[in-house]
C-alpha cells in the first residue's frame, strides 16, 4: 500500500494531447517517487473553470462540481479529493463551500444530480496537490529524497492567482506566498523570494478573448523574472504555465522583447531533483526548453 492515497481530479487540460499533459506526466512521476497513490475519479467532468460563468450561471456550474464530488464519494470513499489544476481546485472547493453554507442550494444541486442517478453528501475535503506536498509530506521529507539538488539553478516561483486566492495554501499571505520558494529551496535550487510578480494575474482565460490586454501583463511577469536573474519560472497552475510560456513569440513581436524564458511546473522540478529522466519529468512538453533542468536530468 502506498504511504498516501487520494481521490484524483486531473482536469481537462491534463489529458493526453491537451495543453498541460506535461503537468499530468510529471505529477505521475513525482507521485511515484513520493509514494503517493492517485485514484482518478471515474468519469470526472469539467468544472467549467472560471470562464464558464457567462455560459452557465451559478447552479449549473456548481452542479458540475457536485457530480465530481458525488462520484468521488461513491468510488473513492473516505479519500480527500486532490486537484492539480488551479481552476479545478478552486471551482470544486468553492462549490463545496457554497453547498455547506446554503442548505437550499445543496438540495437543489442534489435534485439536479438525481437526474444522473447520483447523490452527494459533501463531506469530502477538497485539496490542492501543493497542500499534499506541504501539509502531508512536508518540506523536510521532500528535501530528504533529493538525489540531484537543483544547484545553481535560479527559479522564479510564479504562484499566480487561483492557487493562491481566495483560499490560499498553508495559511500563507495572499500578497507574498512563500511556498514555491520553500519548495525550490528544499530541492536545493536558488529561490527568488522577492520576485515581484509572483502573484500577478496572467489574464487567465482572457488571454484568449483579450490577448492584447493579457499579453501586457504576461510581459511583466517574464520581465521581472529576467530582472531577478532567473533561469526559469516555475508555477503550480496549468493556465499560468501555458499563458506565460506559449505567447513569448507573440509578445516579442508585439513589444520588441527577446524573451526565451522556460516555464516549468513544480512537479517537473521535483521529478528531476529526485533523479528521474527528462522524459519522466515531461520536459519534452516544454515549448521553450528548460535546458538547465535537461542537463541535470542527463
Amino acid at each position, binding site marked *: 500500500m502506498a504511504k498516501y492515497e487520494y481521490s484524483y481530479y486531473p482536469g*481537462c*487540460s491534463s*489529458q*493526453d*494531447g*491537451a*495543453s*498541460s*499533459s*506535461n503537468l499530468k506526466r510529471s505529477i505521475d512521476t513525482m507521485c511515484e517517487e513520493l509514494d503517493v497513490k492517485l485514484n482518478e475519479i471515474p*468519469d*470526472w*467532468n*469539467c468544472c*467549467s473553470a*472560471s*470562464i*464558464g*460563468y*457567462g*455560459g*452557465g*450561471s*451559478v*447552479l*449549473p456550474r456548481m*452542479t*458540475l462540481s457536485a*457530480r465530481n464530488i458525488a462520484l468521488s464519494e461513491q468510488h473513492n470513499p473516505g479519500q480527500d479529493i486532490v486537484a492539480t489544476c488551479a481552476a479545478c481546485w478552486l471551482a470544486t472547493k468553492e462549490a463545496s463551500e457554497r453547498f455547506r453554507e446554503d442548505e437550499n442550494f445543496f438540495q*437543489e*444541486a442534489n435534485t*439536479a*444530480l438525481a*437526474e*444522473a442517478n*447520483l447523490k452527494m453528501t459533501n463531506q469530502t475535503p477538497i485539496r490542492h496537490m501543493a497542500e499534499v506536498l506541504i501539509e502531508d509530506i512536508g518540506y523536510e521529507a521532500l528535501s530528504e529524497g533529493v538525489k540531484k539538488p537543483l544547484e545553481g539553478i535560479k527559479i522564479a516561483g510564479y504562484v499566480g*492567482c*487561483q492557487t493562491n*486566492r*481566495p483560499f490560499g495554501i498553508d495559511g500563507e499571505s*495572499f500578497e507574498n506566498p512563500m511556498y514555491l520558494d520553500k519548495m525550490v529551496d528544499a530541492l536545493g535550487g536558488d529561490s527568488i523570494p522577492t520576485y515581484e510578480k509572483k502573484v*500577478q*494575474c496572467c*489574464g*487567465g*482565460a*482572457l488571454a*484568449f*478573448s*483579450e490577448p492584447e490586454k*493579457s499579453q501586457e*501583463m504576461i510581459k511583466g511577469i517574464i520581465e521581472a523574472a529576467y530582472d531577478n536573474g532567473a533561469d526559469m519560472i516555475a508555477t503550480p497552475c496549468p493556465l499560468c504555465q*501555458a499563458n506565460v510560456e*506559449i*505567447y513569448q*513569440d*507573440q509578445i516579442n513581436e508585439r513589444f520588441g522583447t527577446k524573451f526565451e524564458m522556460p516555464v516549468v511546473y513544480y512537479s517537473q522540478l521535483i521529478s528531476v531533483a529526485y533523479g528521474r529522466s527528462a522524459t519522466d519529468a515531461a520536459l*519534452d*512538453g516544454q*515549448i521553450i526548453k528548460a535546458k538547465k533542468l535537461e542537463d541535470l536530468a542527463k
Partner: protein
Amino acid sequence: MSDMNTAMVEKYRSNFLKEVEANVEEGQWVKMCMQCGVCSGSCPLGPYWAHPPQEIFMMIRAGKREEVLSSDSMWMCTSCYNCIVRCPRELPITHIMHGLATYAKKLGLVPKNQPTAQFSQIFWDNMMKKGRVNELKLGLSLYFKDGFGQGIKNALANQKLGMNMMKAKRMSAAEFFGGHGVKDVAGLQKMIKKAEEIEAAKLEANK
C-alpha cells in the same frame, strides 16, 4: 428588449438594489460596499473597466440599471480574486461581477460582440457537448467566431503557436474527430438541464 427584462423593470421600477439582491449571485452583499476603492485599484484590468467594481456598486445603489447591466465592465474580470481577498468588508466581489454579467445575459443586455462574453459561451457549449473541454475545437471556435475570412487570418497568425503545441504533444489533431469526454454524457446533460430549470423557475418567480 427581452420579456424578462421588461418584467423586471416593471417589478423593481425604482429599486435596482433590490433587484440585484434578489436575482444576482451574492447580490445581497452589494449594500455592504463602503466605497474605499481597493477593489478597483487591485484589479489587473482595472484601467479597462468603463466602471470598476467600486463604481458599479455605487451605480447599483443609485439605480443606474441600464448603465450597469449593459456595461462591458464586468466582462473584464479575469477571476484573479485580488478584489475578494483585499476587500476590507470581505465582499465576494468576483462572484458579484460574474453574477451581474450572467444576469445581464439572461436579460439580453450584454453588449454585442463582447469578446469575453462570446468566449465564455463558446467554452460552456464546448464543454457541455461531451462533459470535458475539447481544447482544439475551443481554439478553432474562437478563431472563427467572426466569420470564415477572419478565422483563416487568426489561424494563420497563430500557426506557429499551434505547431509548437502539436510538437510538444500539448495539442492533438485527434481531438477534431471526437476526442475526450465523459461516458455518461446523457446523464450529465440531463443533470445540467435540471439545474437550469431550477434556476429559471426561481427567476420566473421573482418577476
